[in-house]
């Protein structure tokens, strides 16, 4: 594993994401409310370009929402552009089947620079 410089933190403000290529592997870099996450750009379903999808929220219906459908977790959910499967960016888990998750690569900000370990 080695560190790879992604770029200045100012170029990846909260709510933004970008796909970079590191050693031939495409990785999605996400800034969710100031915390960075790095996931492979390969969906667990049919190997689609997961990180080219949109970042938004999801619907939930539970005791926490008083058993009404509510829009939750805005900015934390990635939707695959091929068939719409949703993934939690902060854990890599698939919402429909949380046992399945994409790998998360270590990513950190040092001296204003975003660095990925791969």
């Amino acid at each position, binding site marked *: *594993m080695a560190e790879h410089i992604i770029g200045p933190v100012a170029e990846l403000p909260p709510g933004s994401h970008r796909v970079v290529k590191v050693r031939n592997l495409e990785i999605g870099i996400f800034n969710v409310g100031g915390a960075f996450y790095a996931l*492979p750009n390969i969906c*667990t379903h049919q190997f*689609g*370009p997961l990180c080219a999808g949109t970042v938004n929220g999801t619907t939930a219906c539970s005791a926490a929402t008083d058993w009404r459908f509510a829009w939750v977790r805005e900015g934390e959910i990635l939707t695959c552009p091929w068939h719409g499967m949703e993934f939690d960016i902060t854990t890599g888990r698939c919402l429909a089947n949380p*046992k399945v998750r994409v790998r998360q690569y270590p990513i950190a900000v040092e001296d204003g620079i975003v660095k990925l370990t791969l």
Partner: protein
Amino acid sequence: MIGELSSAGAGGPTIRPARPGDYAAARALAEVSGFEIPSTLAREASFAEVIAPGGVYIATADLPIGLLIAQPIAYDGDRPYTLWIELIIVHPSWRRRAVGTALYRALGGWARQLGIHGALTARRDEPAADALHRRVGFVAHRDDLLLWRFDE
């Protein structure tokens, strides 16, 4: 375990999962094969990390002459679910002797046994690499990837 020990053919090399002690030989193999040293082979500690999930195979004929590094990029519970082929190298004097195919066969046996969904790699503009990948069962996927499905 499938792929634990197999042979590339009569008189051919033995294929086995890599061990931490293979680090120096694996690195030397990458150097002699003209490969830029990947970060997975940069340090002994990172090599130990890389082989831990199990998708790293080595071909030996007294000395290591082939190396395949596959890394999980998705998991189902604790087991790998999707693999990324980071590297396949064969010593120059052992090329065209089915060593690469034997390495991939060992990986495929292990992957099917674990229920792994598929493996991907970057498409390269090299006829020999392309022929090897197609022979093994990889097909073109998206713009610049090759995909080998284990669940079909």
